[in-house]
């Protein structure tokens, strides 16, 4: 039985990774999950310098989901390279580094700093709804998506995945723009912009007023967007949004995702990502599927 997949030229032992920002750089979860059993670990967004993020509260629960407005707090690329990459290198898993920035130059600076690092793939977050400058501003205009993709591609030493936003009229158009810019893969979806009001305090549940909605509540939207992107581009797709079980992951795979990421579900169950790997294996055994690749995009 084969679970390994090829993603943008990188071979993963299975198609399961973690969604950026929900798993740190793996250290905190390593007691709960053997990281070597995951296809890859995707790290929290890292910028050229440390970012303090947004004021609290940054988190609130919603029906079958949650809103977050972390605001991309991160230690900056220096500490990340010194601490987080060596930590992950102890494990037999691929490393996907999620990159954020406020300007194109900042994305490029981080990309260049990663050139010599032992990382397998870059995931460029142009879709964070929680920071004012950068982030989503780049992800909502196809011309900007294409331009930033091609500028990053020129400097990148690793394959580049562009992470797209669901907060657009036509995500397939953004996927095409990323492909035109030379992207090696697409990942989607990032969170949907949302809001919760605390009726007793007559105020916002989040200090940032709005936040990104994630979790099972967004899964049908995510599956639809993965399906549409898969039909719009030839490059592989890393699908995510509300995956909690192997059955959820298989929906994304059948819709066309070559890899899947487990995000918010980690908060509900710290070994969720590994449980998804095991569940996919069990499904294949039961259904007599010899190769996971038979399932990718099998629902047309």
């Amino acid at each position, binding site marked *: 039985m084969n679970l390994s997949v090829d993603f943008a030229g990188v071979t993963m032992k299975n198609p399961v990774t973690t969604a950026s920002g929900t798993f740190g750089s793996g250290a905190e979860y390593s007691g709960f999950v053997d990281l070597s059993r995951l296809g890859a670990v995707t790290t929290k967004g890292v910028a050229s310098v440390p970012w303090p993020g947004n004021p609290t509260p940054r988190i609130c629960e919603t029906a079958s989901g949650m809103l977050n407005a972390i605001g991309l707090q991160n230690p900056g690329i220096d500490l990340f390279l010194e601490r987080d990459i060596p930590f992950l290198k102890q494990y037999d898993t691929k490393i996907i580094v999620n990159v954020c920035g406020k300007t194109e130059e900042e994305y490029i600076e981080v990309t260049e700093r990663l050139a010599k690092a032992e990382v397998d793939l870059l995931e460029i977050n142009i879709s964070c709804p929680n920071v004012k400058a950068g982030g989503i501003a780049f992800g909502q205009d196809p011309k900007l998506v294409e331009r930033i993709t091609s500028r990053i591609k020129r400097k990148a030493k690793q394959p580049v995945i562009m992470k797209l936003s669901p907060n657009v009229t036509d995500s397939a158009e953004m996927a095409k723009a990323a492909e035109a810019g030379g992207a090696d893969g697409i990942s989607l979806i990032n969170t949907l912009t949302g809001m919760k009001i605390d009726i007793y305090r007559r105020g916002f549940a989040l200090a940032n007023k709005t936040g990104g909605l994630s979790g*099972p509540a967004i899964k049908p939207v995510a599956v639809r967007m993965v399906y549409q992107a898969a039909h719009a581009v030839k490059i592989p797709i890393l699908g995510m949004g509300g995956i909690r079980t192997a059955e959820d992951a298989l929906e994304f795979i059948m819709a066309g995702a070559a890899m899947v990421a487990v995000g918010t579900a980690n908060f509900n169950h*710290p070994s969720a990502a590994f449980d998804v790997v095991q569940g996919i294996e069990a499904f294949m055994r039961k259904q007599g599927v010899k190769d996971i690749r038979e399932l990718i995009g099998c629902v047309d």
Partner: protein
Amino acid sequence: MAEKKKCSAVITEQRRLTPDIFSMWLQFPEEYNVAGMAAPGQFLSLYCRDGSRLLPRPISICEIDREGRWIRVVYRQAGEGTKEFSRLRPGETIDVVGPLGNGFQKHSGKNLLIGGGIGIPPMLALANELSGETEVVLGYRDGALFLKEDFEKSGAAVYVATEDGSAGTKGNVIDAIQKNHLSAEYIYACGPIPMLRGVKEYALEKGILAQVSMEEKMACGIGACLGCVCQSVSKDSHSNVNNKRVCKDGPVFDVEEIIL
């Protein structure tokens, strides 16, 4: 390699202490004795059965019986999650990750424990384990007192403050400290932010070393999501930006360390 896990604890007792405060004893499996690893000031992540409520509820450890593999939690019915917990009956199970966070640094000497409202429960686990002279000040909204006798059983001298004056000193915990002329070498406190501010001011003025337990909304509970940060004086070990994680670097902090 993966040695930590979410485990299932059996509820062995569920009791209502006041109209909205409940006490629950949890027993842990022999092969994963959370109680054996627990220390006062740490907390548990309790998970809801209702699958639409994904995030763990952080609840402090109120009492520990390491050999019996028991932990007691005392919680206020605040919303749907804690309402669900209050309906669990003995024999039923609840999913738990823990113990989490860093507990109180224990000192022997003249200890003053201060708990306000739902910040009272963690102080009991501490009172049970401190040696030396221990005084406890408990702040309540009204006469619906809870856990007072348990503190008395621990051997501590117990003082009460109520906002409406229905029991003990009328006012807040600092009023009770002053009225009863309490003094201490070490302070340990948990309660709402305004109370912690008062404690900080009092401790700094008197030059007493104080530790406080903080609260913030959490998603992962283990230090990965950066949801639960509080502003700190020194750099945090994660991002170097003066944002300590309540779940991982706390919930207990030295009071001078935290910007309240």
